[in-house]
């Protein structure tokens, strides 16, 4: 408990330092000025999102191979945290794009692909909500997560091919070449800090899921003992045994 508190405090300090560095230490960008500072968190979110979705993919495969509930718990945690990172990225993107590009949204390859990614994993969460049986829920959603993960590279490839064939005049491409050395140091710090936050939330979410499973297990044990007490008689409590 104490160790967890210390780690949480450390990560909080880290993200605070990262925020400070991004806002005050990093040099001003030549054309975009202050608004460019959103970049440090925007990019860091995408990085964290990919890590979270990779965890979800790995956990889904592991669940199907081993059949252990903990992998299912890790899978759903990965997707949930990834969706949060993705949402933050999708919100900060337009906030940055509006003053710089003059538009909130454009159907550019990266934006489109990420939006589809977001839709895919929202569908994953929806699917989990609509299946009753826990075992079925775990295996079917793991199958969907694997299909969705396989789809990601294809989505990116398709969008890239598609947009190079239809060049869009509005985009000059983000930062592009040559970051200032201070900028890249701050960026690295931000990447690390946001990754740590993601990891912390992921682990906590995983623990929560495990506790829920444990709770269900204990409830089940109590119910079983209740049935033992009435053993042998066809009481209404027995009828609940269900087929």
């Amino acid at each position, binding site marked *: 408990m104490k160790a967890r508190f210390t780690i949480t405090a450390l990560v909080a300090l880290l993200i605070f330092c990262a925020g400070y560095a991004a806002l005050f230490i990093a040099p001003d960008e030549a054309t975009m000025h202050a608004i460019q500072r959103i970049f440090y968190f925007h990019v860091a979110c995408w990085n964290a999102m990919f890590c979270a979705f990779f965890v979800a993919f790995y956990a889904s495969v592991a669940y*199907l191979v081993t059949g252990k509930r903990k992998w299912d718990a890790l899978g759903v945690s990965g997707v949930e945290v990834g969706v949060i990172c993705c949402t933050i990225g999708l919100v900060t993107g337009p906030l940055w794009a509006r003053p710089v590009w003059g538009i909130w949204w454009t159907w550019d390859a990266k934006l489109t692909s990420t939006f*589809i990614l977001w*839709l*895919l994993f929202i*569908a994953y969460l*929806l*699917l989990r909500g*609509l*299946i*009753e*049986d826990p075992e*079925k829920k775990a*295996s*079917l959603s*793991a*199958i*969907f997560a*694997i*299909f*969705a993960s*396989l*789809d990601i590279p*294809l*989505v990116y*490839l*398709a*969008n890239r*091919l*598609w947009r190079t*064939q239809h060049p869009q005049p509005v985009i000059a491409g983000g930062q592009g070449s040559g970051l200032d050395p201070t900028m890249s140091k701050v960026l690295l710090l931000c990447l690390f800090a946001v990754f740590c936050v993601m990891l912390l939330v992921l682990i906590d979410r995983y623990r929560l899921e495990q506790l829920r499973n444990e709770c269900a297990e204990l409830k089940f044990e109590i119910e079983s003992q209740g049935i033992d007490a009435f053993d042998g008689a066809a009481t209404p409590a027995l009828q609940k045994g269900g087929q």
Partner: protein
Amino acid sequence: MRRGEGRCSQFDVRASGGREPQDFACPKQIIVIANAVPRLFIPAALWRARDAERDLLLTTAQAAGIILAKELRLEFRTRELLTATVIFALVVVVLFSFAFDPTAAESRRYGPGLLWIAFLFAGSLMLNPSFAREQNNETLDALRMAPISSFAILLGKILANFIFMSLAELVLVPVFAVLYNLSLAGIVWRLILVLVLGTWGLTVTGTVFSAVSAHARMRELLLPLLLLPLLTPLLIAAVESTSALFAEQPALDRTWLAFLAGFDIVFLTASWLLCDHLLAE
């Protein structure tokens, strides 16, 4: 001892492999197609290793052929699914013309996109009953109890859905060409190639997720939600390669065709690897 004679008392009663089933339920052509199609995509060695491990009486392709024949028989008895799919896609096509009132140049530009949107929507509706229909008398349990590989069940259904979807397209494409004043002359074979590759990807993923959504509440709504985002790369590739055919100078876009084929291979392989978990209780 011949198969089917006497009760099965030993577990080592082996099939005399590769025997052709002999009577009406499964025409020979279907077996040939069922044998050929999956082997285009999956290396033969892998295929054999997986079948041998299970000691099957029928090869996966033979069993898939039987399931396919059953699906076709069920569907052609009523033709409900096919009719509904065609009508639905027609409604989409007609509504589009009201919504946009396209000129000749515009219909050439937007036509392929519209066509594939209509196919995707119609497909996501049509594929739903594929597994949901089996729940009436729990017939899926009967199939799962039979000594066949789980992929045979899935493959039979994929092939059946592919045939249904292709038949619907066979009706829809000429109607579409007439309504939007597009000429099919000279591009028929190339168009068929694009349609086949696109439809195969659509039916593979669609059939897999119809098995997934069959276990969920609100399955009619869920299937399009799962399927359509997953199919965006397919949509882009299919629309682009169809557009290239409807352009002033019709051409076959090899990049997009390769992409379509890649999509088909990736998802067929994935469903082959995951089908045990997909159909297990």
